[in-house]
Structure formats: C-alpha cells, structure tokens
C-alpha cells in the first residue's frame, strides 16, 4: 500500500466495477429502448411531446420545480403511489425515452406530477393554480409569470403558456408493454 500507482489502479478498479456493473449494463439493456405499442398494431407510446411542452420543460427546470415535485409512480408493491391516485399504473423506463432531460425528482413536498395532465380538467385550471394556489398549499404563487392585460385581466406570458402546456402533457394514460393499464 505504499505504491501510489497501486492505490490509483485499485480506486480506478472499484469505480469502474460499479460503472460497468450498473451504468454500462443499464445502457446495454435500456439504451436502445424506443416507443412501442402496447399490443401489436396499436399506436406507439409514449406520444411525441408537443413543441410547446418541450419549451415548458425548460421553464419547469429553470424555476426549480423538481425540488418539490417528482415524476414517477412506484409499483403498488413499493409504496402507495397508485393508491394515492398519482397514476393508474407504475412508471416504466419506456415512458421517459423521448424526454431530453429526465426529472424523476427525489422529494415530494408537493404531489407527484407524472400523471398530472390527466388529473386536471383544463389548462385554465393549471393557470389558476399557478397564479394562486389553494390556501394551505405549500406551493408559492407563480404570479410573476403573468402580466396584466389592457382590460385588467391577467395574461399568461410565453413562459406560463409553455409551462402549462408541459404540465398538461404529463400523462400516463396508456398501456405500455411492460405495464398494462387495468381495464
């Protein structure tokens, strides 16, 4: 243990063991995952994101929403996410293949958003929630994303429009080959 080369080689070995064992093997298994139909001949899922939603993800990231919101539904055997109504089925790797940056998150100060788009009824509902969250909600108001129009009504800025389009696009309302919706 006096030889610096030995220590370096050993440390490199231990690091590469986990790098190959977890990351590279994970890449071999999942790296070429693509969209797929739940049943033969069905439509391909996940759906491509609308352009506005892709911009909205950047707003979501730049406001640090991921500090309080996750986007993953755990299987029923690993937590009560499905029972809480966060989603109709658990998330699978395929759900994320189209996302340029994956925002799984690690803390739920607010609710999980993986299926948020399917839970809200309309974009207006999201706008209203962003501007003035219900009393008792731990979420701050994002009123600064809105300007006041000529008639005094609040008008969403481009950022707000994109963010809402993104939030509306968050849905797991389709079956995946790995996890079927219960009909």
């Amino acid at each position, binding site marked *: *243990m006096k030889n610096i080369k030995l220590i370096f080689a050993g440390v490199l070995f231990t690091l590469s063991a986990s790098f190959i064992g977890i990351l590279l093997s994970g890449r071999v*298994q*999942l790296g070429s*995952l693509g969209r*797929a139909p739940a049943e*033969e001949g069905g439509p391909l899922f996940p759906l491509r994101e609308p352009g506005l939603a892709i911009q909205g993800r950047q707003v979501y990231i730049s406001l640090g929403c991921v500090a309080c919101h996750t986007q993953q539904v755990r*299987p*029923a*055997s*690993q937590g009560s996410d499905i029972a809480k109504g966060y989603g109709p089925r*658990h*998330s*699978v*790797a395929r759900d994320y293949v189209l996302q340029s940056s994956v925002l799984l998150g690690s803390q739920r100060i607010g609710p999980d958003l993986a299926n948020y788009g399917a839970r809200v009824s309309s974009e207006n509902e999201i706008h209203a929630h962003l501007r003035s969250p219900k009393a008792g909600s731990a979420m701050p108001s994002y009123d600064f994303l809105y300007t006041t129009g000529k008639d005094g009504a609040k008008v969403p800025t481009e950022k707000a429009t994109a963010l809402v389009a993104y939030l509306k696009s968050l849905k797991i309302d389709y079956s995946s*080959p*790995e*996890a079927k919706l219960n009909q």
Partner: protein
Amino acid sequence: MTDQHHSPDQPRRPSAGDSHSVSDSRLVEAHSHLARDKEEPKEGFSLLPIIVVFIFCGFGFWAGLYLTRNAAGFSPSAFDLSAPREVASDGPKAFEPDLAKGEKLFLQQCASCHQANGLGVPGAFPPLANSAWATGSEDRIIKIILAGIAGEMEVNGMKYNGNMPNIGAGLKDAQVANIVSYVRSAWGNQAEAVMDTKVAEVRKAIGSRGQYSPKEILEQHPLEAK
C-alpha cells in the same frame, strides 16, 4: 521534527487529551509497523479476524441470495417486484407455443412412461395418442401435469392403475404450455395449443396440493364425448 505547538486550539483549556499529542512522523511510523506485524494478540481480541471473515462470508452469501430472488432474472423490463415473473421477463414478446421445444421436453419428462409414440404401457401408463384426456379440457390436462394423478382410471375402454408424480410443479409455465401443446398436436391428435398464461392461471388456482384421483378430476372436468 516535533510539533511543539499543539495547544493553541484550546486557549482556555490546557486539556489532558493534548498532553498525549504525538508528532506526525512518529504517528505514521508507529502505524506502519502495526500494519506489517500484526498487533500482539490480546485477550478477547484475537477472535476478531475470524469473526470478521465469517461475517464477510455471511454477507456475501446473503447478497447472492437476495440478488437471485429480487432481480427478476436481470430482465430490463421488470419494474414491479410483485408482478408475475413470466410476464415480466417475457416483456413485450407474446408467448408462442413452440412444438419443437415441447417435443424435446416431452421426450425428457414424459416419454419414459407414456412412450415416445404416445401409446403408453398397457395396464400402467395410459396412452395420450387419440385420448380425450389429452385433447379435451385444457384445465384437466394442465392440472394433471401440475399436481399428478394416482388411482385406477379408464382410457379408451382399458383400465390403467398408474401413479403420475407432479412433474409440472418443477417446470415453468411456458414449458408446461409447450409440452401440452405438443401432446395435443402429435400422433394424430388435433386440439388447440395452450398458452403459458393459461398454465399460470391454473397453477395459481390449484395452489400447492397433492395428486388428483381420477374420480376427483372427472368431477371437475367430465370426460368429453369423442
């Protein structure tokens, strides 16, 4: 080179701990000797290395066990531990009965009694060729393979008194499905193939149980008319 100035971090408390302070070079050298010649064995301490080795082995054993039980066959598409294993590891590919695999398994598992030609042995092992037991109810044949059957039974007018063990209990759902599909299509038999999900369903329904008697199985699934 000794460090004479070990007390400044305690302006108010010239503490007992500090009087022990040693120089860096002595510290390094003393431990360097320790690493080379092991510490003198002391009472109650000499057992430690052996215990440590045992604990390491125990951990290693447990790790292997845990991984084989909880890795779902290292499948890339298994995310839910409670999901049925077969569905998970087959993933998006649907099960297709494979008659060639079925034949191979039949020759390994079944042919010693039922014979490769499916005619069985008179008096002991009933035939499968041209038998309603094989081509009739899917549930019945799967149940017999999974749980076994013992007692006197009548097949095509002949009496047999054999004892079939629960061969299917040790096979996967897909393997059982391949065997059944083969039996139902070989030697002139013409019946629908069986899916692995059907086997899984039956396996779940009967749970772990002993062999059937011919009377019991016929009560559940009466023999079809030819």
